[in-house]
């Protein structure tokens, strides 16, 4: 069977729509229906690992509630923010996983373009993801350069001289990123980014029958639960 491939717009819409049932039926077990739906979509997209991770988070949350009475009070208190953070956002995270794990940045950019988003947002968005790996590389390069001068960025230096360590790491990083930003500007301007013409894309992103079907089933579920709850 082929993996399910949804339009990014469908997934964005699902992420927003899931707020409605959760706000309306908060606290009832009907929420599980919507969590299950997200899991089903993840499985149909062949994202077994992500589905497993999500189930693990759910199991942790449930198991902690069960064994909490055997644990000392202090441990429960210490872990409480994790419990809240995980428990409160669990249903939302299911749809977040669906969006992030099954969407490529290119497709998302095309979808944003089709949603009539301004160019400024789309270009900034693409540059953002382009730079995340660069930041990691820069960090390593700066750490190596600083080692040459006898400055290390370990736990020890952070504990003894937080301000200085921070400054030595942070300022060179900002400098080098500004520099590579300038280079990227020149490179992309010569390739015609920001021209008058509308961009064309190699990939096709289209709302198909499957997308409408997925959204339709979601709406049916919402209406169904709404009437059962009444």
């Amino acid at each position: 069977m082929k993996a399910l491939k949804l339009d990014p717009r469908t997934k964005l819409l699902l992420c927003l729509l899931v707020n409605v049932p959760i706000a309306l039926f908060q606290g009832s077990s009907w929420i599980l229906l919507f969590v299950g739906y997200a899991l089903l979509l993840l499985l149909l997209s062949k994202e077994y690992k992500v589905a497993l991770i999500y189930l693990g988070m759910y199991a942790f949350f449930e198991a902690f509630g069960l064994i909490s009475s055997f644990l000392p009070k202090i441990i429960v208190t210490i872990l409480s923010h994790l419990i809240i953070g995980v428990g409160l956002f669990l249903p939302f995270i299911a749809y977040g996983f669906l969006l992030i794990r099954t969407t490529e940045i290119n497709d998302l950019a095309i979808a944003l373009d089709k949603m009539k988003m301004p160019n400024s947002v789309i270009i900034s968005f693409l540059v953002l993801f382009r730079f995340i790996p660069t930041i990691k590389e820069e960090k390593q390069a700066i750490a190596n350069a600083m080692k040459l001068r006898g400055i290390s960025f370990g736990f020890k230096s952070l504990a003894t001289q937080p301000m200085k360590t921070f400054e030595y790491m942070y300022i060179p990083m900002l400098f080098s990123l500004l520099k590579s930003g300038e280079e990227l500007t020149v490179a992309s301007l010569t390739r015609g980014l920001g021209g008058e013409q509308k961009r064309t894309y190699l990939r096709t992103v289209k709302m198909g029958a499957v997308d409408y079907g997925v959204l339709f089933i979601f709406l049916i579920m919402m209406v169904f639960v709404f009437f059962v709850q009444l």
Partner: protein
Amino acid sequence: MNNNKLEVKDFISIGLFSAIYLVLYLALIITLGMVPVIYFFIAAISNLIMGTIYTLFISKVGKKYSVAIMGSLIVLIVSFMTGVVWTKLVFGLGAVALAEFFVSRGEYKSFKLNTISFVCFGFLLFGTYASFWILKDEFMQMLIEHSGTEYADIIATFINPTMLIVIIVVTIIGAIAGSFIGKGLLKKHFERAGIV
């Protein structure tokens, strides 16, 4: 900087600064997010660091809507990564709108208005905490049904009104301090190098 319209150069700067903001914020969450009480003050701690980015950003780009675009990108990406709860979107985009309003009032040059704007901007990821308080009742009800009242009481130790006020005040102080740190570092390093 004669024309006040965003160009490709500025789009790239916006993306760049949002990327640094996101990476640093996620690094903070991963390292400090596990520590119990400190978790609630990550916004304040991050403001100390982000003040420099923000100051550099507005002195480098400083055009209409630049802050708004950067802020909304950060809010949207973080919310879509951790689950889109309406509170996150409402608080985040509200904070960004206020920040843009104040910073454009001072034409991106007045330090006082930039600081006020950064205080608003510092709340852009506040929605995560706010949802703890706003969605508290339903969540507690669920916990009580699941595992009993005692458990729910312990979990709710930190979710009280005093804590909320403390978080807000500390976040504001962090933002003001961050703005001053940013100003100092900018003067010490970037102005001397002729970048700004």
